C-alpha cells in the first residue's frame, strides 16, 4: 500500500504548497504590515485601535451587533429547526430546502431585496402607515436594518446546525421520558435541549463569525454611521490610504473571531461528551 500512500502524500504536499503561498503567506504579510511602519517595528496601530474613540467605538459596535444578531438568529433558528425536526420524515427535506434556499442566492441580491422591503416607499412602510397612520417608518440605512440583514444572512447556517443535532437525537429517549410521566415541556428542557447544545454552539460560532466579519451588509442597508470593523479596515486602506492601519484592524477582527470559535468549539465538544 506504500505506493498509493506516497502518491497521495505528493498530491497533499502540492495542495499544502499552494495554500501556504496564497493563503498563509498573505496572512503573515498582513500581520507584518500592521506592525512594520516606516521601516521600524511598532505596535502603534494596535494601541490606536484600543485607545482612540474613533476605532474603539466601531470595535464595540461590531461586537454588539454581532452578539445581538447571533442571539436573534439562535432564537429564530432553534424554533425553526425544532419545527422542522418534528415534521414527518418525508416532509423535512421540503422544509429545509425552503429555509436554506436564500443561501444559493447572491448576497448582494438578497440585500437589494431588503432595500426594497425597508425603503421609505416600500411595502413595510406602507403597511405601517396603513395601520398606524402618520409617523413615517424608515428602517433602511439604520443599525436595525444591519441587524436584520445579518440575521437573514446567518439564519440558514444556524438552522442547519441545530437541525442536525436535533435529528441525531435518539427517539427512544423521548419516549422513555414521556412514558415515565414527564410532561412535554419537561422532556424538552431536560432531554431535548441539553442534547441539542452542540448544534447550538456550532450554529452560534458560525453566526458570530459571519456577523462580525460582515462587509456587504453595512454598506448596503446601513447608514454612514453604521460601518463595522471590516468596513473600517477597507476604508482605512482604500479611502485614507493607511495600509498598516487597515491591516491591523483586519487582524484584530481575525483574532476576535478565532478566540470566539475556540471557546465555542470547547463548549461544543463538552456537549458531545455529555451526550
Amino acid at each position, binding site marked *: 500500500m506504500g*505506493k*498509493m*500512500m*506516497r*502518491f*497521495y*502524500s*505528493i*498530491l*497533499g*504536499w*502540492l*495542495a499544502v504548497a*499552494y495554500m501556504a503561498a*496564497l*493563503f498563509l503567506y*498573505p*496572512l503573515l*504579510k*498582513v500581520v507584518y*504590515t500592521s506592525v512594520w511602519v516606516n521601516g521600524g517595528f511598532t505596535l502603534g496601530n494596535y494601541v490606536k485601535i484600543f485607545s482612540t474613540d474613533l476605532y474603539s467605538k466601531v470595535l464595540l459596535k461590531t461586537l454588539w451587533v454581532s452578539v445581538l444578531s447571533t442571539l436573534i438568529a439562535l432564537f429564530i433558528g432553534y424554533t*425553526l429547526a425544532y*419545527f422542522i425536526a418534528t415534521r414527518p420524515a418525508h416532509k423535512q*427535506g421540503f422544509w429545509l*430546502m*425552503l*429555509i436554506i*434556499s*436564500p*443561501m*444559493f*442566492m447572491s*448576497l*448582494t*441580491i*438578497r440585500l*437589494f*431585496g431588503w*432595500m*426594497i*422591503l425597508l425603503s421609505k416607499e*416600500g411595502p413595510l412602510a406602507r403597511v405601517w402607515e396603513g395601520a398606524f397612520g402618520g409617523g413615517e417608518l424608515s428602517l433602511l440605512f439604520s443599525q436595525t436594518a444591519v441587524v436584520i440583514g445579518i440575521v*437573514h444572512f446567518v439564519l*440558514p*447556517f444556524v438552522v442547519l*446546525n441545530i437541525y*442536525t443535532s436535533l435529528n441525531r437525537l435518539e427517539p427512544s429517549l423521548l419516549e422513555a421520558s414521556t412514558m415515565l410521566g414527564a410532561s412535554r415541556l419537561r422532556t424538552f428542557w431536560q432531554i431535548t435541549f441539553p442534547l441539542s447544545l452542540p448544534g447550538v454552539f456550532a450554529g452560534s460560532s458560525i453566526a458570530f*463569525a459571519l456577523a*462580525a466579519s460582515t*462587509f*456587504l451588509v453595512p454598506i*448596503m442597508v446601513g447608514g454612514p454611521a453604521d460601518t463595522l470593523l*471590516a468596513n473600517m*479596515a*477597507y476604508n482605512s*486602506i*482604500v479611502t485614507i490610504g493607511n495600509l498598516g492601519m487597515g491591516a491591523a484592524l*483586519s487582524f484584530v477582527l481575525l483574532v476576535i*473571531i478565532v478566540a470566539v*470559535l475556540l471557546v465555542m468549539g470547547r463548549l461544543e465538544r463538552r456537549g458531545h461528551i455529555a451526550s
Partner: protein
Amino acid sequence: MRRSWTSLVYLYILAIVLFILGPVLIIIPQSFSGGDMFSFPPAEFSLAQYQKLLQDERILASLWLSLSIGAASTVLAGLIGLCAALGIVKGNLPAKNLLESLFLGPLIVPLVTTGIGFLILFVPLGLVGSPLGIVLAHTVVISPYVVRILIATLRHFNPVQEEAAIVHGANSWYAFRTVVLPQLLPALLSGAILAFLVSLDEYTVTVFLAQADTVTIPIRIYQYVSLDINPVVTALASLTVILSFGLIVLLEKRFKIHKYLEM
C-alpha cells in the same frame, strides 16, 4: 386550547418563512415596474428593464467576466481540493489536524483580512486589477467547500478496492483514475457547484483586487443599487432569483445538497 396553540405555531412559522423568502421574492414584481426601484407596489407593468438588460454592455461584460473567473477558479479549486483531501485522508502527511485547518482556514479568516493579504501580495506582482489575480484569490476562498465535502466522502471510503487494483498490477495513477476518482465524482461535482456559486457571489475579497475593467457581477450590482442607481438591476436580480430556485430544486433532488452546507 390545543387548537389555538397549533395555529399560533403555524402563524409564527409563516412569519419566519416570510422573513426568509420575502426579500428574495419582492424582487420579481419589482422587475416588472416601469423603473421605480424602491416604490411598492409597482405603478405599472412593463418589460422595459428586461429589454434594457440585454443592451447593458457593462452588465453583460461583468456577467461574462464573473462566469469566466468562476469557471477557471472552480476548476483550479477542484484540483487543489482533491489533492488536499487525498493527502489528508489517505496520504501520510505530518500534523494532519493542523494541515486540515490550513485547508479549511479561509472559511474562518474574515474575508477582509484575506482580501487585504492578497492586495499586499499582488501589488508588487502587478496582479491587482487583473483577472488572473482575482482567479487566484477565488481559488483560496472557494477551495474549502470542495475540501470539506471530499474529506467527509473519503473517510467513508473502502480502501480494499484500491488494494485489489494494486495487487492485480495497476500502478498508482491507474488505480486512482479507475477506482477512486469515479466514486468521488458526485461529491466533487457538488463541491464544485457550491464553489462556483461562492465565486460568482464573492464581493469582499474581490473588491480589493478589482479595477475599472475587472468589475465582477456582485460589484456591478452593488454599484447599480447603491451608487449610480440603475433599475436595470431589478431584471438581472429577478432572473437570478428564478434561476437559483430552479438550481436549488435540482441540487436537492439529485444530491441532497443541504447535507453539505454545515460548516
